[in-house]
């Protein structure tokens, strides 16, 4: 199976591990990530204004490219995922935005949200299946107590993202189980880490990440996993005493599949 793949700017730079381990794991699981040629940065945050059109066009280009290839579009960065899924929803369901974006794009055939946007984790759950994944694991993460840190962008708004139950998600816990680890469920797993405020003022993210680490460590986690490079950054910069190591979920995946040292 071949998917169109939108890596995003961070995975080409500071979050290369998130990308590299995903590609190695996909190969081991028998699917291929075909990078969209000349993709442009999605902007990292979804433009909330109903009159903001130009800032949504880089996403429309990527979505339309996948449509032309007849492929589903895969993302790894939760921010890219959020932006692409929401713009796709606009193109499908918001006539005003869709018309105005298509007026800019001047495509042979207007783009109407035909592409299906999937997070890498959704592919593991819905197309590969966690049972199948489990059967491919050669180095189970035995004895590891792992807290899933979802953050915000991959879950909310639940009606549009349709990724998992936004208040009680389980996809990452099921993923951890498939790899042979023990998931640790803790209250702050879907609470914000401080997001982009850490650029100008680290105060909020220090406060938030302390709550996240206190909560996850309190419930016994030895490590956290994330799919978001900004969460990774904010968590790593935390000065909390309860801090534990944080990994991209793809790193643990590649390790369990025995392909971590490949390439």
């Amino acid at each position: 199976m071949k998917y169109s793949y939108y890596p995003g700017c961070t995975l080409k730079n500071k979050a290369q591990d998130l990308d590299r381990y995903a590609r190695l794991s996909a190969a081991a699981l028998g699917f291929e990530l075909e990078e969209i040629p000349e993709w442009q940065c999605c902007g990292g945050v979804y433009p909330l204004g109903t009159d903001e059109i130009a800032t949504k066009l880089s996403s429309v280009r990527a979505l339309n490219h996948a449509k032309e290839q007849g492929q589903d579009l895969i993302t790894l960065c939760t921010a890219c995922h959020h932006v692409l899924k929401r713009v796709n929803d606009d193109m499908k369901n918001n006539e005003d935005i869709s018309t105005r974006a298509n007026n800019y794009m001047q495509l042979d055939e207007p783009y109407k949200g035909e592409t299906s946007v999937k997070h890498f984790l959704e592919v593991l759950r819905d197309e590969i299946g966690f049972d199948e994944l489990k059967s491919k694991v050669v180095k189970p993460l035995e004895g590891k107590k792992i807290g899933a840190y979802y953050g915000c962008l991959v879950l909310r708004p639940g009606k549009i993202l349709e990724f998992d139950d936004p208040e009680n998600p389980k996809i990452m816990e099921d993923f951890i189980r498939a790899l042979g680890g023990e998931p640790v469920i803790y209250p702050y797993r879907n609470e914000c880490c401080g997001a982009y405020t850490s650029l100008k003022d680290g105060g909020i993210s220090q406060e938030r990440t302390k709550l996240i680490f206190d909560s996850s460590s309190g419930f016994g986690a030895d490590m956290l996993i994330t799919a978001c490079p900004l969460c990774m950054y904010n968590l790593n910069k935390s000065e909390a005493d309860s801090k534990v190591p944080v990994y991209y979920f793809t790193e643990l995946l590649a390790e369990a599949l025995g392909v971590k040292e490949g390439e």
Partner: protein
Amino acid sequence: MTKQEIEKNVELIREISGCDPYKCMRCGKCSGSCPSFNEMDIKPHQFASYIINGNVEELVSSKSLWKCLSCFACIERCPRNVEPGKLIDAARQLVERERGGDHLQAEDIPELLNEDVPQQLLVSAYRRYRR
């Protein structure tokens, strides 16, 4: 602001956000969910009433504009679909769309950098703090 300017800005906030502040029942669920509640001077459950009552000048000069994380917790949980996170984003845009209203200047970026800053952080802040 003159009365006319206030009315125009109320209209603009409603247009940009696509939200109806009149549906707010002040249940406080948004403020109860907000990770930046302590940092905000005007709280999420008050956004709608500031707009309804025409207190736009106070709202656009509020520090809450720069404390909202766009985490969408209030948007997920608002039982009346008022979606206060969108209202505050629209208020922020009123400010940023004016000349000199940006909260982040390109010249400031070099000194905010460290070697770990992910690209995502830069573009996100750039998008949310300026237009």
